[in-house]
């Protein structure tokens, strides 16, 4: 693991919807190349916070930098990050290579370079045979792996993953996390939300959000020690149990 410069720096970030405070003055740093787990119960504010960092939503107050850019400057941030949303979001009616070519083109990668990297990438994830398949014909597991590979195709400094493994079988999840670790070894910062506590164990550091605030932030080992728990699952249940907000009520 490379522990170089700060990749994400957030201070007092707040987002209010009317009277409801979804994200309440959160502060944290993420280092370059780190796999940062961003946990919390449904409605704790993780997705909102993540959307601010990606430039999809404007913060009500607070400051921060993402990949060296101020969060106010969303368009600059977007050039330097990759994003994979909760909802599967490649174009179903485009073929695998066409999706890759589209997103590569958006980030200004030349056609020749795209073709080379596409073959290399498909080879690496063992999907060379599926290059010409329409995305809608693929099983969910492959779709997710493809979405991730597409999100890091343009070599972003940071990749944001919003519950990337929802609805996927354990074997595919394992493979998915191998892809994440590989990316991290290449120096990509991985910012990931998840509900699977076994996945939290793979993270270098984990933060747990409760009611819009960050209640705990440390390595999984330290958190287990601090809360005298055998697993992250126990840690999570101790913290999330304190939540006063109703689940999902922001929707």
């Amino acid at each position, binding site marked *: 693991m490379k522990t170089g410069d700060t990749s994400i720096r957030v201070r007092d970030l707040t987002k209010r919807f009317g009277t409801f405070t979804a994200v309440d003055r959160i502060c944290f740093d993420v280092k370059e190349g780190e796999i940062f787990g961003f946990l919390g119960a449904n409605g704790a504010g993780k997705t909102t916070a993540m959307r601010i960092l990606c430039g*999809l939503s404007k913060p009500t107050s607070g400051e921060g930098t993402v990949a060296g850019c101020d969060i106010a400057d969303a368009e600059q941030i977007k050039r330097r990050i990759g994003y994979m949303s909760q909802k599967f*979001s490649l174009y179903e*009616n485009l073929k695998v290579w066409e999706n890759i070519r589209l997103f590569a083109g958006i980030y200004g990668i030349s056609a020749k370079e795209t073709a080379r990297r596409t073959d290399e990438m498909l080879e690496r994830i063992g999907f060379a045979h599926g290059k010409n398949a329409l995305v809608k014909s693929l099983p969910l597991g492959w779709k997710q792996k493809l979405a991730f590979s597409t999100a890091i195709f343009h070599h972003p400094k940071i990749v944001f993953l919003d519950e990337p493994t929802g609805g996927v079988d354990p074997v595919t999840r394992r493979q998915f996390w191998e892809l994440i670790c590989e990316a991290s070894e290449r120096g990509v910062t991985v910012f990931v939300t998840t509900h699977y506590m076994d996945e939290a164990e793979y993270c270098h550091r984990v933060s747990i959000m409760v009611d819009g605030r960050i209640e705990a932030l440390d390595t999984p080992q330290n958190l287990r020690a601090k809360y005298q728990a055998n697993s992250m699952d126990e840690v999570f249940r101790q913290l999330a149990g304190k939540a006063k907000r109703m689940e999902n009520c922001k929707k």
Partner: protein
Amino acid sequence: MLGYLIEKEFKLAFRDAIIPRITLVMPLVIMLVMPLVADMEMKSINICIADSDRSGYSARLTGKIAASPRFVLAGLPATYREAMSSIEAGAADMILEIPFEFERSLASRHTAHVTISANSTDAVRGGMGSSYLTGILNDFARELHEERSPAVGMSAAPAVTVQNMFNLRLDYKTLMIPALMVMLLTLMCGFLPALSIVGEKESGTIEQMNVTPVGKFTFIFAKLIPFWVIGFVTLFIAMTVAALLYGLVPAGSLAVICLLAAIYILAMSGMGLMISNYSNTMQQAMLIMFFFMMIMLMMSGLFTPVSSMPQWAQAVTVIDPLKYFIDAMRLVYLKGSSLSQLGRETAALLVFAAVFNGWAIWSYKKRK
């Protein structure tokens, strides 16, 4: 970057289950069926003549009406009541009552009364029917006059001749076809873009686009291009059908039609995208579009002339893009107007294109 986005929009459009088919089928259906249906020309008005006079004159008048191409003699009932029941049954559209002593009154007093009763549930049909019948009555009166005093004539009045221009066959279809092309472009290039952005919202791909550095302008512009192509394909199919089936070719220049169509498609697609931006579901987008489309169609002069509307309604039509394009298409197609004569229409369409697309770009928020 733009190139890749346009490529994506094209692939998505052509791989869509519906868009390519509808692009081909819609113009055919509209152009084959609509001109036949939208024929407001009054043919075959069914008339009952209740003749209480049974004289030479009344028989001549009946013969004259029956011989007119507009009227079909639906019956010669003895009484008005009997005639009424055939109106209620829908077998007749109007009744002419020729009163007792019709001939005598005409001969002695120079004047006679008849009664026309027209079913005017459909006011247009009722009104036109009775005015055609009045025309026949006048002709009949003139005939009688000329028979009786051939030398006198109407020397004091000037001879009035009528000359028609442009649509010499007086074919209602000729008027409708260019306007139907406009309706067609409106349906295709209004509804499909309205579903476009909202479709990406529903499938979630729009999020993925929003986290990329793609600019608003680029994103919207890439969406517009395929509709341009679809619009032109539709237009050319429609024009071909019009030429082959109805023998209607533009009197004016094809270049002017293309130029105006290009601006119009841009304007309508812009409007569709704008509505798409404001909707969360396809159902919403469709409904909003339908609402505006309906109003714009009714106000456009497609079915009834704008000049017949009340002042306030005419003022509303100033902001109806359909009106300008329908006017322009009719002018170019039927009268061969040049671009310089269409300054007002062209300028208006350009303004609509600019406003709708500007609005679409402005209202597309990458960040909330």
